[in-house]
């Protein structure tokens, strides 16, 4: 395994059983994540993009083993995450891998002052000696733009942007190598969103953090990511460097996603690719290429044979029949 990757995920699968019939046996599986592979470079940001229900959040949760994977392998710093027992996991993996959740209103305990919330994991893992704990907490808070007098206050006293800063501080206090950020800015206002994105960028430079950034907002992704993987119904359909992906999107789904973002320019009433219908149910996905039901370029072959996921030069991988298989 190359050493410059902090996280390597191979063929990750997560199936949820669907029960049915009289005796409630498993009739079929919802393939929420179906064979996803990617890696996150040290100090880099990998972004997973897709619509709701495409499985991007499940990927993040299974890597942390907040839900148990069905198959596949994941390595953090060369350690096999999926083979570990809970105790080892808590000792070796969780401190190095932290998560920031989407909704800062739901991810902080309303009864615990924020200083305590940030301190708690540090104390549990005995990261710093007891005497220095308070000082350490305040230092982390300062780095996240939180003044020290906030430490004694409760979450309800803060606005959304401040709470997200607290969540970031809590994740950062563990001095993790990797932060999994699940839509960290989508619940925030535009002007606050910019503050949080800048903060995440600054901290990355300062601490050499790696991010797995999960989002549906391509404009935010373009700002933060180094590499982007586009997910559709449980699999990655396109993967490339950020520049390459935004300059030359190859998969019709990526193109549609890009063109769907409204542009703040009244003169550019552009022609956009409007996808027909909705995302199909993951419990009953279309055969072969899962995108063929909505694809503007669908051909007969698309509903018969699943396209191969191939590298078309420079690490730009696509699974689509439009390109030579």
């Amino acid at each position, binding site marked *: 395994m190359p050493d410059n990757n902090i996280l390597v995920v191979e063929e990750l699968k997560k199936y949820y059983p669907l029960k049915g019939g009289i005796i409630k046996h498993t009739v079929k599986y919802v393939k929420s994540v179906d064979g996803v592979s990617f890696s996150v470079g040290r100090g880099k940001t990998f972004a997973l993009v897709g*619509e*709701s229900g495409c499985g991007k959040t499940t990927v993040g949760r299974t890597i942390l083993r907040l839900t148990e994977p069905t198959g596949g392998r994941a390595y953090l710093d060369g350690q096999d995450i999926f083979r570990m027992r809970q105790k080892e996991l808590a000792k070796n993996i969780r401190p190095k891998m932290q998560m920031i959740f989407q909704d800062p209103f739901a991810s902080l305990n309303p009864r615990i002052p924020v200083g305590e919330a940030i301190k708690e994991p540090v104390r549990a893992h005995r990261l710093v000696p007891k005497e220095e704990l308070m000082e350490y907490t305040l230092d982390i808070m300062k780095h996240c733009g939180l003044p020290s007098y906030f430490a004694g206050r409760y979450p309800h006293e803060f*606005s*959304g*942007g*401040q709470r997200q800063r607290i969540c970031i501080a809590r994740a950062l206090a563990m001095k993790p190598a990797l932060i999994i950020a699940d839509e960290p800015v989508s619940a925030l*206002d*535009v*002007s*606050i*969103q*910019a*503050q949080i*994105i*800048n903060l995440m*960028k600054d901290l990355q430079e300062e601490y050499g953090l790696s991010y797995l950034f999960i989002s*549906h*907002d*391509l*404009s*935010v992704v*373009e*700002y933060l990511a180094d590499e982007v993987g586009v997910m559709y119904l449980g699999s990655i359909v396109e993967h490339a460097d950020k520049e390459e992906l*935004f300059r030359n999107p190859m998969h019709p789904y990526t193109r*549609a*996603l890009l*063109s*769907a*973002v*409204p*542009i*703040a*320019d*009244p*003169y550019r*009433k552009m022609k*956009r690719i*409007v*996808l027909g219908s*909705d*995302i199909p149910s993951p419990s009953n996905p279309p055969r072969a290429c899962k995108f063929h039901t909505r694809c503007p370029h669908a051909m007969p072959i698309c509903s018969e044979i699943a396209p191969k996921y191939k590298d078309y030069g420079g690490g730009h991988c696509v699974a689509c029949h439009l390109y030579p298989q």
Partner: protein
Amino acid sequence: MWFKNREKAPIAAEASANMKDSSNVLEIDDLKVHFFTDDGVVKAVDGISLDIPKNTTVGIVGESGCGKSVTSMSIMRLLQEPPASIVGGEIRLNLGDDALDLAKMNKDSMRRIRGKEVAMIFQEPMTSLNPVFTIGEQLMEGILVHRPDIGNAELKGKVIELLKMVGISRSEEIVKSYPHELSGGMKQRVVIAMALSCEPRLIIADEPTTALDVTIQAQVLELMRELKDRIHTSIMLITHDLGVVAEMAEMVVVMYAGRIVEQGTVYEIFENPLHPYTRGLMKARPTKDNKSKRLYSIEGNVPSPVGLPDYCYFHNRCEESEEDCKNEYPTLVSVTPTHKVSCYVANKENKNA
């Protein structure tokens, strides 16, 4: 149904009004909506004036807590009173021959306006549909309230036609299904169909696409644009997404902490934004063309709505603020006949130019 033979409440005489300009559908004049809470008076909307001309889309932009939703709720008179109260101002609705001041309407007579003259599309399609009634029943109710004498066959035909209009293909089956059986985009289409059912003069869309995915948002925006021209209605589009506004609106109103800070046509606002807040909002958007390393961000937070200062509310976050800004709150000054801004700095620049 129970409401079929309900007597209609008379409209109070003091609610009649005169339009300033008969080409407007709605005129809001110095509207003040305050909330009387234990912590003090929250001036959620504090003296806003805006016109919505016929067959146009007016976009209202602002962050959460700026009063954009309160404005729309007070047009519909859906605010809970108390604690809310319309303290002053007029909301004039053009009914063709005469006009009504919605701010003075009583609770019962408002029922004749809601849905029929002014309809609303809410942010969350999941919560704005009733889970225990079928789509058909919910669509029929709205039509029946305003047209109790409509025949059964006509009613059914109308509902199916409405669903077809919003691009739902299997409308005969969808009529019989319940909201949970539909996807988010479909539900929002149903809500739009409901808003259209009585061909209202004005549709208020409160963040209609915020809860939807980008691809579905594109579908819904396209649909709204098409329908606006088809039934000749005006849309008041409330959003925090400048991209959506640029695409949909003809006029733009920017709100901050309960007041209008800038308004104008969409071209004026996007080409020549004058208020520092508007400029900040535009710069803060991560876009493809914005290639700089760091995103621009407006420092600080939206001020607490209780105990706002006497001077410009944006002063503490403003980069361009000067001595004058500590004076009383700046008035809205016209730059062109359509473009207005409330800022000392912007006005000074304009005079010099």
